[in-house]
């Protein structure tokens, strides 16, 4: 759904799509490789960033690299990746150091420190950027205007080389310090008490994050690059409660979002890649949010619906049994087969015949009843199930009045709800407790 929206925005066409996936175009190959590197590095680090509640820090550092990029460009007087990456890395490190410093030397809380540094750096960066564009060597062809929203097709082989090395460093760093990163993310104080150098671990993580930010400037652009860190990891956290799985999913989402976004931007004739990647990632997040197994919207809706339908079915079954019982003059257990006429059942349930027929259909499908010649007959399976439900209901009702000592008129609703979810084990236990009380 989200992806078709991207296609629509991209005004895509089929030949471009084929050209993209045929991988004949070297620019496409470089862009794809770059986006894969990004997916791995930011997917991995993003998980730790989100778990440590440092999402805002990722965003701040993302914006803060702009002046570094511009200064690097000014020094090299061209788009030389060594200077651009170096400048960006330096700016990110200075910014993270400043954030820590302001926090420690004032009463300001981290969010304010990050906001201050982020906007200040971005402001300086943007001033430099506009100034550069007025310089002779800073014309449009310099490609520097793409740092705001990214242009993956401008990734050169030399850029790619840097990105590959940075990704390798990040993967090795996370792999080596996995235990320390996990422990300090979960319980930093405990980590400190067993001698883990928590500050060093924090700075290591920040350095790796700065690296991953620097290599995403080309493809995603400084304005939106924090999404590369945060969105895939956030989506992954919704889907699992195991850290290794979360890391895996996060990397998967980041690379998938990168590749699909790249494809969409390519079909839109090389529009900036950043927004496309971010929109795709947001789509993945929305999907995860709806489908999440524990608290997902879809799961919750399905669970509720399943329970409601089951309760409806069981209530119908119960009413068939009770109506049949009532129509036996003598009362007691009705002789097999248990049957009641449709008209009588409709009267008993106070329901119109068409509505009753609709309510009976799911029971017929499940082989619990047969409807023939205006008679509803419980199958052996249906009779067994009906007796069980009624027994559960009565057990629960008695338990509530006798053990929980609720007045009878308070027990009905509770019993009506619970009879449907009472497991056989629990029913047996209830029975045992009630019979204990009697003897």
């Amino acid at each position: 759904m989200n992806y078709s929206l991207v296609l629509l925005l991209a005004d895509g066409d089929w030949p471009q799509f084929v050209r993209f996936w045929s991988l004949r175009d070297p620019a496409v190959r470089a862009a794809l490789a770059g986006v894969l590197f990004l997916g791995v590095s930011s997917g991995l680090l993003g998980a730790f960033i989100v778990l440590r509640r440092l999402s805002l820090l990722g965003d701040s550092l993302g914006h803060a690299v702009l002046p570094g990029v511009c200064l690097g460009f000014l020094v090299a007087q061209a788009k030389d990746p060594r200077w651009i990456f170096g400048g960006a890395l330096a700016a990110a490190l200075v910014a993270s150091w400043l954030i820590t410093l302001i926090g420690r030397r004032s009463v300001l809380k981290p969010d304010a420190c990050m906001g201050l540094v982020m906007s200040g750096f971005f402001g300086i960066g943007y001033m430099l950027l506009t100034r550069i564009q007025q310089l002779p060597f800073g014309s449009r062809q310099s490609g520097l205007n793409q740092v705001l929203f990214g242009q993956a097709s401008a990734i050169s082989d030399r850029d790619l080389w840097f990105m590959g090395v940075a990704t390798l460093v990040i993967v090795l760093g996370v792999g080596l310090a996995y235990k320390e990163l996990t422990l300090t993310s979960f319980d930093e104080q405990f980590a400190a008490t067993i001698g883990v150098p928590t500050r060093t671990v924090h700075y290591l993580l920040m350095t790796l994050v700065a690296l991953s930010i620097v290599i995403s400037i080309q493809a995603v652009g400084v304005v939106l690059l924090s999404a590369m860190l945060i969105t895939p990891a956030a989506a992954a956290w919704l889907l699992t409660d195991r850290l290794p799985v979360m890391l895996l999913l996060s990397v998967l989402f980041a690379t998938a979002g990168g590749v699909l976004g790249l494809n969409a931007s390519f079909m839109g004739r090389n529009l900036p890649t950043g927004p496309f990647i971010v929109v795709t990632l947001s789509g993945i997040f929305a999907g995860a949010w709806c489908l999440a197994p524990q608290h997902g919207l879809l799961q919750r809706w399905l669970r509720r619906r399943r329970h409601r339908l089951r309760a409806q079915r069981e209530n119908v079954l119960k009413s068939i049994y009770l109506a049949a019982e009532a129509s036996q003059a003598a009362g007691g257990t009705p002789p097999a087969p248990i049957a009641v006429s449709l008209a009588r059942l409709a009267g008993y349930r106070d329901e119109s015949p068409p509505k009753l027929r609709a309510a009976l259909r799911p029971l017929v499908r499940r082989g619990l009843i047969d409807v023939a010649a205006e008679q509803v007959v419980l199958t052996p399976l249906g009779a067994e199930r009906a007796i069980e439900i009624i027994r559960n209901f009565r057990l629960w009702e008695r338990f509530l009045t006798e053990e929980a000592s609720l007045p009878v008129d308070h027990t009905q609703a509770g019993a009506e709800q619970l009879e449907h979810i009472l497991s056989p084990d629990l029913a047996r236990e209830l029975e045992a407790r009630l019979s204990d009380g009697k003897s």
Partner: protein
Amino acid sequence: MTRPADDPPREPAVHPPPIEVHDLTVSYDKKPVLWNIDVAFPEGQIIGVLGPNGAGKSTLIKAIMGLLPIESGWVKINGRPLARERRAVGYVPQRESVDWDFPVTVADVVLMGVYGRLGLFRRPGRADREFCANCLEQVGMATYADRQISQLSGGQRQRVFLARALAQDSRIYLMDEPFAGVDAATEAAIIELLRAMKRQGRTLLVVHHDLQTAPEYFDSMLMLNMRLVAFGPTRDVFTTQVLHKTYGGRLTILSEAAEQVAGTRR
């Protein structure tokens, strides 16, 4: 340093106390919250740390664990600086100090207890896992090993923290309110566990809030209210005067309770 072979090894005359706190002052933002604390805790006891809210109990525990900068004074563990005795001390933080939505299982959390022994970058092995499974067993949580930690009740979370502490296998433990918010059955199980640890000769320093149960649980008590009010064996320290001094005028019902307890002990 060399020594002639026939020179008998010089044993220290007295065994250094497990925890010695000397003239300790701790401040937050220049405002001291603990003043000149001087105390040496005896070995092999369950020692209660009591005092009103804001008395600095957690601060004392954290300062001993090296989690807070010390303004003046020093702390020694087994006669040596903490940095050289880290493995001798286990820590049970307050339950609320971590995010229980973190994507790890109960077994993962307990395994963190052995990380201190492993050292940097080394991964726990099968023996470590088995040892941790045993620790979980001891707190009665073995069946929860694969649960995600957000699915635990408050008392179960406390037990997981205790299992992690057991996995540390230390001689000294500092515990910040291990009984907070647990039901009577869990509280009984926890105190049983602490007593078992004591029987193995371990020293336990436990922050506690309930004056009713305190005299029954602790061999010694530290009464704290920013300053050290009293420290000593429970029978000497858990008296009406000391409680009054510790809790000030705020404590009328509780001091009456203490009076009764003291009465039964006379």
